[in-house]
């Protein structure tokens, strides 16, 4: 079940809104403050990944879901490419960051859309 859905233009000015929603939904998931912080960072990085591959004048879609101790994000956008490149090589340090802060990360292309699905959890 989705707690919050958001559709924004593919423009970096909306990152602030994305971070803020991630914080509020993360608090609903009762994350620790560091996981809350990383939920925002992961949402921010997911948005940056979408911006990199999405059509310039298109929209980005986000669905956040809170579960006890875990924040899930499903994000998508229409993709510029017909095939995704090697992600660690293309995203470089951003890949290191998003891989380190998520307990689950899945980036794939489906029906012409790039999807970023991820989970951030409080440390056990």
């Amino acid at each position, binding site marked *: 079940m989705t707690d919050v859905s958001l559709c924004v233009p593919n423009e970096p000015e909306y990152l602030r809104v994305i971070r*803020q929603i991630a*914080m*509020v939904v*993360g*608090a609903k998931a*009762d*994350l*620790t*403050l*560091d996981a*809350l*912080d*990383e939920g*925002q*960072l992961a949402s921010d990085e997911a948005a*940056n990944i979408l911006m990199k591959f999405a059509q310039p004048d298109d929209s980005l879609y986000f669905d956040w879901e809170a579960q006890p*101790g875990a924040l899930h994000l499903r994000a998508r956008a229409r993709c510029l490419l017909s095939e995704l490149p090697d992600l*660690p090589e293309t995203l*470089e*340090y951003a*890949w*290191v*960051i998003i891989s*380190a802060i998520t307990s689950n990360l899945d980036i794939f292309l489906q029906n012409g859309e790039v999807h970023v699905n991820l989970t951030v959890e*409080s*440390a056990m």
Partner: protein
Amino acid sequence: MLSAGAVNDLILELRSPDVTTSRAEAIKSEIIEGHQGLIRHFIRLRDPQIYEDLVQIGTIGVLTAIEKFDLDRNVSFGTFAGEQIKGELSHFLRDDGTIRISRSVKSNLSDIRAAQDTFVAQNNAQPSFTELESCLNLKRSEIFNALQANQSTHFASLNDPDIHIDVAITQNEYDFIDEWESVRPAIDLLTPLDRKILGMRFIEQKKQGEIAKELGMNQMAISRRLTSILEQLRHEVNTE
């Protein structure tokens, strides 16, 4: 840095009625140039987006010191200039719109930090949001505002104890290669403490709470610094 005697001689010459305008400007430039290290020492945190602005603010501090320095007092120019630089930087950091935080938000931040520290000391674990909320007499929206303010404050106060933490780190302690190559120049500009925090989080894969415990800092301070560090890295990528 110029010696105390050399600065005193230059100031004496500057205040002489015979000094020409061009010579006066040259003297001021020489003194400012000779105190760049002092200015950069007081800036400490390096955000490439406004670092040069802060150098300019520090330079104003040196100019004020040149004007006000009393040669008859038993204080070196460097000591006096240091106070002026600190004053100008504090004034700027306090008043500049990019980091202005209301008193109530500051107070809430301080309460959150204290509640978090107490919880960690008693339970040896980070509190969940609900646990933290139950220790505070704050509305949820006030907590969100404070946490957001914490992240948007790139520059800690010059009196912030965290800013004075000194860590020993060698250039090769963390293997910032391959995936980090595009942000290498920004990493090279980080302070040793920020470099250590970056390495601990993303190379050693430690959680913010663990880093805070190990470095004797608060998790919120780590959060603030990581936000600032990652913004610096992104800035580096975007300006390539």
